[in-house]
């Protein structure tokens, strides 16, 4: 079932520009994929429109993630990616909104698709992007007391803090002193 991307692109351009005007920044096709870049303050309205408009019907939110463009020297630093699919029309597209480092806030699309719940939590966990009005914005993969956001480009692969296991014969706290000392590994902070 081949989808006519050019036609979809024209339709998007017409309908979206009518509603949102200049806030739709760019609609492109590359590698057989339709990508639409929008301003971040209209993301919820755009998604709502994409879901409900009979000619788009993007009823399945496939994926939400972000890209940290800082190592490429690009501004704004983060791009938030929404990958959409329409079960009715069998077409895909990608919506992209940029978030700057000073203002890491973007509205949540949880009200449009409930899938966004965990996907946005993961994006927050990995990039530190804050999804406003998200019902439960906590870390999901990393421990709750983790410092930093691992998928940012300035986060080193080996982590910020290093631990190593030190051999020790010291008895543990609360352990009787008269036991035969045993060599055991203890977690130490460098």
């Amino acid at each position, binding site marked *: 079932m081949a989808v006519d991307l050019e036609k979809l692109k024209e339709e998007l351009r017409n309908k979206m520009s009518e509603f949102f005007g200049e806030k739709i920044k760019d609609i492109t096709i590359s590698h057989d*994929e339709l990508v639409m870049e929008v301003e971040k303050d209209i993301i919820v309205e755009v998604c709502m429109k994409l879901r409900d408009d009979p000619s788009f019907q993007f009823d399945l939110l*496939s994926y939400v993630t972000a890209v940290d463009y800082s190592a490429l020297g690009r501004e704004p630093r983060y791009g938030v990616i929404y990958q959409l699919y329409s079960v009715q029309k069998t077409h895909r597209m990608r919506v992209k909104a940029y978030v700057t480092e000073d203002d890491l806030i973007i509205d949540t699309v949880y009200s449009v698709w409930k899938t966004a719940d965990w996907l946005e939590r993961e994006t927050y966990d990995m990039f530190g992007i804050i999804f406003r009005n998200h019902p439960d914005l906590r870390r999901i993969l990393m421990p709750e007391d983790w410092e930093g956001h691992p998928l940012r480009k300035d986060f080193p692969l080996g982590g910020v803090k290093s631990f190593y296991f030190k051999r020790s014969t010291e008895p543990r706290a609360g352990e009787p002193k008269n036991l035969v000392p045993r060599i055991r590994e203890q977690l130490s902070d460098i």
Partner: protein
Amino acid sequence: MATKRTIEMPVESIESMTLNMGPQHPSTHGVLRVVLHLDGEVVERAICHLGYLHRAKEKHAEHKTYHQFIPYTDRMDYLAPMSNNTGYVMAVEKALGLEVTQRCVYLRTLLCELARISGHLLWLGTGALELGAMTVFLWSFTQREKIYDIFEWICGARFTVSYMRVGGMSREDYPEWRRMVREFLDQYMAAHREFETMLNGNEIFLSRVVDVGTINGKDALQLGLTGPALRGSGINYDARKHTPYLAYEEFDWEVAVEDRGDCMARYLVRMKEMEESWKIACQALEALEKTQNERCNIDNPKIIFPPKENVKRSMEDLIHHFLLASEGFKVPPAEVYQAIEGPKGELGFFLVSDGGPKAYRLGVRSPSFINLQGLEKMSIGYTISDVVAIIASLDPVMGEVDR
């Protein structure tokens, strides 16, 4: 001597009880931890805690060359590494704008379907075991062993195969191997019928799965479920059929859809899907036989490793081998999303390349992670023992959930 203590508490003050399930609970398929809020034995809330198996795959992808990352994809959905390999190399090929040979497409299709059968066989065995049927487990593992033998004889590894390469395969198939696949496929359907006779009319099994964990199509779509979990709720979406890739368009097969939305529907979808996979595998094997004189890998020494025996004789091949192993190939700047239908649902790879030999960013849309979001919605109002059946029917693989 111990004395019996009584706690005096008026009945009204008893509020909902919190019960921790996992991460070592045998029915949670690895290290899933669910905190259940219970009213008596009925679930009021089911909160998942993830991350026990988080291995920073997406971060590693940014520090490995495109070839070096292939083994990491094996360890995501470790029950169907062939599918993961395929999804990943297809994403890289898309960014490169690379067309693979027709023979390679058939071989990938065949292996993906074998991986789907093997993944579903594990679900069938463990799922039935959790619901009290031991025999199915032993029988399905017998079949699974045969698929692992097939994998072993084509790539040397049984579990983590790392078989696919960008632009082709690590090695080609051969007539004895195809005969082996043929033998497996010839006897598989008889075994499949046996599984069905064991479960379809089994009173104990039915009472555990029928009308348990019901979710309607609208909710399933809202929660982003894909794969058997979505098709069990009557929504017809299968990436193989609706956004075709590999050779699925050429073959004759149907998408399995059931309307009921309960654990039984998801069970039936998977059983039907195994039959359809068998059909596709048979056709792919035939197509493979027909094209046996053609090349499998593309003819591009800048991307695909040269044959090992040539490396020892030819200077050119040695240089190419050295460059590929040490530096890797470069991918022009691109942003692509490649989705395939893995055994658990839509498996997507979002790749951003910057022109270098390593991915700038690789995002993995793992179906198990998103399907698991449906657990709470499905569990509310059912008992603790039903939660076991519901987790089994969702079939999450924690390696893929936590990545």
